[in-house]
């Protein structure tokens, strides 16, 4: 306390010492700050600037300012509502699958002997360590028509399941990869719950369900927030599995999500005239949505309470 008062007094009197005082923390913050500036702030600014121009392949050398023209064009697109809803559907359903399966796997694999639990978790990590293209090739193989496709053979109905049930395939393919992420985080969180709490619950005669509901889940609030928020944001911007599975089809934007549409406008075209500016406008909207969603999560999960100092000191 006394030290702080002296320090504050010095700040007022001799500013040069203040520089010295903040030099070390600033130095430690520098690498992270540079990274954030380079890889977050700068791209966001570039995207915003690009979205206000008419840059495309044809105007690549001399782009012109067009103001909010691109945003107006987005609003005028009759399919933009559909694409927006598709994005919501994709994120929410995949998230439910991801977090749900991840949680179930963590709970199940920690309640059996570690030997088996570890093996089950290792098995679930396989999709994640496969390169996306190879992983999707497996899905293509699974969903082909008979006699090549496993699903067709098992169900006895020969169809191309990717075009027959595009959403189910997309959510399953994404969810099975994503589940392992939640599984790992939740497992380590469950492992770090003090064993005493389980003993106490057992002594009080709690059933397994009660233990999970009253002991485990309340202790998992923070990891669940983290996994949900993290997965939401990465799902909002991810489109690689959709691109590889359905290319946003079949038909008019059936499975096109926001990020995929931005990619197709801005980066992918057979005849080469691509609209960077329109894609940038879509990306800018995505940034705003991402920030809004993050704020919402912090509110819903009461982030402040989660990171508050513990009321009881445990040593």
């Amino acid at each position, binding site marked *: 306390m006394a030290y702080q008062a002296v320090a504050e007094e010095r700040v007022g009197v001799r500013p040069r010492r203040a520089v010295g005082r903040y030099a070390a923390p600033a130095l430690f913050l520098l690498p992270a700050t540079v990274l954030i500036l380079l890889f977050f702030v700068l791209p966001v600014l570039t995207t915003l600037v690009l979205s206000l121009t008419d840059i495309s392949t044809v105007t*690549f050398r001399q782009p012109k300012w067009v103001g909010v023209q691109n945003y107006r064009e987005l609003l005028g697109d009759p399919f933009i509502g559909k694409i927006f809803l598709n994005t919501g559907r994709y994120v929410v359903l995949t998230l439910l699958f991801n977090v749900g399966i991840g949680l179930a796997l963590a709970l199940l694999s920690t309640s059996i002997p570690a030997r088996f639990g570890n093996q089950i978790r290792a098995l679930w990590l396989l999709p994640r360590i496969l390169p996306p293209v190879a992983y999707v090739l497996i899905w*293509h193989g699974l969903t082909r028509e008979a006699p090549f496709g496993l699903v067709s053979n098992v169900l006895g109905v020969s169809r191309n399941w990717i075009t027959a049930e595009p959403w189910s395939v997309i959510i399953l393919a994404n969810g099975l990869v994503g589940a392992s992420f939640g599984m790992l985080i939740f497992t380590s969180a469950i492992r770090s719950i003090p064993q005493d709490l389980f003993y106490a619950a057992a002594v009080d005669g709690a059933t397994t369900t009660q233990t999970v509901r009253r002991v485990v889940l309340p202790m998992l609030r923070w990891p669940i927030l983290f996994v949900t928020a993290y997965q939401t944001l990465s799902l909002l911007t991810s489109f690689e599995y959709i691109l590889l599975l*359905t290319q946003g089809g*079949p038909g*008019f934007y059936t499975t096109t999500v926001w990020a995929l549409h931005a990619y197709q406008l801005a980066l*992918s075209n*057979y*005849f080469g*005239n691509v609209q960077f500016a329109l894609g940038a406008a879509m990306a800018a909207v995505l940034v705003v949505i991402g920030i809004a969603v993050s704020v919402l999560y912090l509110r819903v999960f009461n982030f402040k309470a989660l990171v508050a100092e513990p009321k009881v000191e445990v040593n």
Partner: protein
Amino acid sequence: MKHKWFVALWVIGLMALMLPPAQAQRVVVIKAWTIGPDNPSVTRFNNLTTAAERLNADLNREGAGFQIRVEGFFDTVGWDSYLRRVLLGFQSSDGPDIVQANGSLAATWADAGFIVAMDGYIPRYRQFADVVPALWDAMKYKGKIWAIPQDTEARPLYFNKTLLKQLGWTDQQIAALPGRLSNGDFTWDDVLATGRDAVQKRVIEAGKGYYHRPVNGPDFIQWYRSFGGRDFDAQSGKLVINKAALLRYYSWLRAGVDGGVIEKDRLNGDWNRYMQPVTDGKVLFFSGGTWQWAEWAQIWVNNKGGEEWLFANFGYGPHPAHVKGGKPITMSNPQAYFVTAGSKNKDLAVRLLAYTTVPDLDAKHAVGSAHLPVLRTTARVINNKFLKEVSYLLNYTTFAPAHPDLSKWQDAVFRGISAVESGQVTPQQGVDLVASEMQRTIRDQVIVE
């Protein structure tokens, strides 16, 4: 004493090493970027290096005092990533001198100022005089020629002769089919009717009566045209969509799906699911490209006898008309070498292209990759049964319109096909959606009629 001599020799030797060798010459690097993406088309790059050797010999003879070296790559991955790389290459100060791509990219790249017009260079080299004249038209935009043709192809309607025979066709009838396709006697409706017959008689499985490509591509323009559509208005230089013709095309596709001739999921994005059934001999009619013949022979039916098997089982002709007596059609999407505006050695680059545009290299590429040659001499001397037999298709060929917004036009038509085939919308709804999509994205550059 001996020691001294030894040191002196050493010094002289070292000095000699430091001097440049007498015949060392300046080397000019010509950077060339090329793409298949099909493997057999690797001659698009290799022909440039062979041509460079011949050019170097001539440079030596002329005492030019320099040699050239071709550097660059042949891309087998895909167009999207290649074109992105090329776009950045155009902007770089160290970009390529020569870029190979679809001739129809001339419109976009010329508007953007990435490439230089060839009109001034072409008369300088006699090699270019031998190029098939129609191909220069495909390199034109706003009255100028923007590229040197590299190869061309045709897109035939293939048919499975073995299956037709099982269906009860005689050998004469099968042999007459290409002629009937050419003179407009065998129409798109006959394709459907034959397919339906084959499905009913269990000669083929449902949906395998007619196959078209599984992904977006230029081919859809030719099918829309074969139903009487036009896509370009030369007078105004604008793109066109004809709703009546598009409706005919979409209705035909719908009828094909409803009749069990075309798969509902035909646009599955997977070439393997096209190649496998076709080369297993299970598909009756299928639209493809001449270059696929090489892929089939070298990869898909290699263990069944390669090209022999193909000749025994597959026949080919132009794509039919939609009414009796109508004009048949095929489409070519010629590949071309562009010289970049950023190149510091434009003259040399064009000269290298002239050395590449010679019959033996043209033939090597054509035979190796089953593309059609670009030189008239090659077409006459080439000794290849398939290429000789499909060359006549060029009489019916058309090109994609030169317009920077072509890709938007194509995307809209393609989405419509995907929606109609998968049953999302009726053909009429599909046409209306496509027209409004085009009016929104291409604005005043499209005429809806």
